[in-house]
């Protein structure tokens, strides 16, 4: 008998929707100068940061005066890095002695759609301590994968969202949870 091959790669489309990264400019930044002279900037003095939006890699960066910059909105890790570099280049052109240092992707958000619906209560019961489900608070069951440092939110529709430190972990998390979801799929019975 042919062993039932369980393909490790689920033929699921994992769509990365957001990549969050940080980097430092290693120099103090004058937010007011950036707000006045920068292109496509939103100065928020009440919070103490400047938002700069880039078009090419659609990213939005929060710039603090300490020189720390958080870059959000990228759809891939490479794009995140490219956008961050462009951002640093913009600041450099404004006149600050910017150094592109300590670039790190801190969060990746991906969504995936299962071809089946899921019985969340059963799923939660099967994965008691790891999964938590509070329908009054949130309609999704939350499943934390410790070793991957990833969190999967499972919706009864079969959609799941995965957040992890990098894209690889996210992909691994999807693969990890797929069989668990398969057990609890809502079949038409």
């Amino acid at each position: 008998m042919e062993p039932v091959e369980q393909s490790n790669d689920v033929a699921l489309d994992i769509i990365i929707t957001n990549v969050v990264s940080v980097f430092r400019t290693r120099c103090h930044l004058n937010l007011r100068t950036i707000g006045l002279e920068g292109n496509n900037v939103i100065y928020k003095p009440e919070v103490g940061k400047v938002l700069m939006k880039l078009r090419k890699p659609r990213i939005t960066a929060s710039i603090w005066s300490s020189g720390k910059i958080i870059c959000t909105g990228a759809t891939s890790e490479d794009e995140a890095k490219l956008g961050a570099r462009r951002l640093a280049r913009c600041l450099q052109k404004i006149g600050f002695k910017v150094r592109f240092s300590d670039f790190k992707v801190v969060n990746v958000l991906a969504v995936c759609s299962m071809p089946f619906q899921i019985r969340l209560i059963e799923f939660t019961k099967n994965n008691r301590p790891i999964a938590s489900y509070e329908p009054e608070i949130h309609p999704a069951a939350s499943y934390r994968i410790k070793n991957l440092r990833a969190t999967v939110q499972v919706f009864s529709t079969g959609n799941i969202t995965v957040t992890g430190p990098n894209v690889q972990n996210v992909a691994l998390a999807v693969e990890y949870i797929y069989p668990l979801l398969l057990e609890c799929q809502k079949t038409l019975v």
Partner: protein
Amino acid sequence: MESIRELFLEEGVEERVLEDLRQLWESKVLQSKAVEGFAKDSINPSNFVLQLPANFSQTLQKPTASVVIPAGQRAQSFTAKASHTGTIATFSLPPGVTYPVHIPAGVTLQTASGHLYKVNVPVMVTQAPNQRVSAQVNKPLEEQRNMTTTITHNIPAQMTGLCPQTLPVPQASQPVLPSLHQSQLPQHPNIPLDQSSQPPVPVTPEPSINYQSSQSPLESPSEFTLDGIEFSPQPVDMSASSPLSTQLPVGLQGDSGNAQVLEFGASAQEMVERAVKAEEEAAAMASTNDTMSLLPDLERTPDSALKLEMELLRDYNFNELASIVQLDGTCDSSSEAGEEEQEQDEEDQGAVGENEFLGIINAEALKALQGAGATTDTSVSSCSDVDEADVEEVEEEDPLNSGDDVSEQDIPEIFDTENVIVCQYDKIHRSKNRWKFYLKDGIMCYSGKDYVFSKAVGEAEW
């Protein structure tokens, strides 16, 4: 009151409002018993308004027009109408009234200058004493008298002038006259607003009236106790009117500007009189109306008009100076400066918020400017070619030397339009990449044409 009435009618304000205000003011005045025993001198042959106390006939209260009392009428005419109570009738004597005029007790008279004289006892208003007194005083200040008289003359017929009664002129009035005239300009602030000011109050209108075309000398040395009680902000008004005094002589002395000044003075007098007539609100309304009626003039020199008015008010020692405060607001002379300041502040404050939008909107337009003073945004991309050579490239773990590779921002940023909007913002809103602008008070240059707007709403996608 008449002019107010007309203005009210023009604006659609209910006649009743005017009447109510007048009644209210009159009742307050009577309640305060401020009007007592005014000594009245000669009568102003021009129109003057008789404010009958509440106990007089209400028939006098005709919303339409003032009741003209023929000169020959005596107290009977008034008493006949004293059937109503609680209402105050205001009517003006025709200019043809010949003195003496008998005024029954309880009538409140108001001179053209706006002074109120409460007639507690039946009095006869004649001209004779005025001529004497006024002639003495007017000589030194003939010019000003001419101004004021002309002003009063220009005042519409509804201007109420009160001919002072022929009661014995208080001796203090005469010495007060010269002192008043002399001290008119510089010393007005010093003149106490209380009873001591009362004699000067009637004095000033007297010379002004003296030079009227009708040449009916008017003296008004009668006391004017109304002011002291009724209006508290006298010191304020006096101080406020002090600048006016300094300016008034300047304006008055100029022949060319006399007409304009006179008009302002007329308006001021009108406003003053109305303030006397009605409550302060009424006075404010009147002032607004007057200002509106004299809008062309006021627009020219609102500040001077205001100051002239204040000057006149001060000359007359009016407690209606309280109305000056309101007139200030209505004339909007000071608000102009305030607006400018506000605009500057708002523009400065909005600069931060606006700059980003300006940058987004005019990014390409500003590219070539490279941070020129007018525009706060400088297109970094446009400066890339110029700045790349200038910007230092720091070596580090990941050198940003690749300014060429990294900065590809120029591509989408080619606008090259000079369409500029300079305005204030009410609200700027953004959702993701959808922007909504709620702007106000702006000037824009679009397609080479200039536009002005008080409100503008815009939407844009970034």
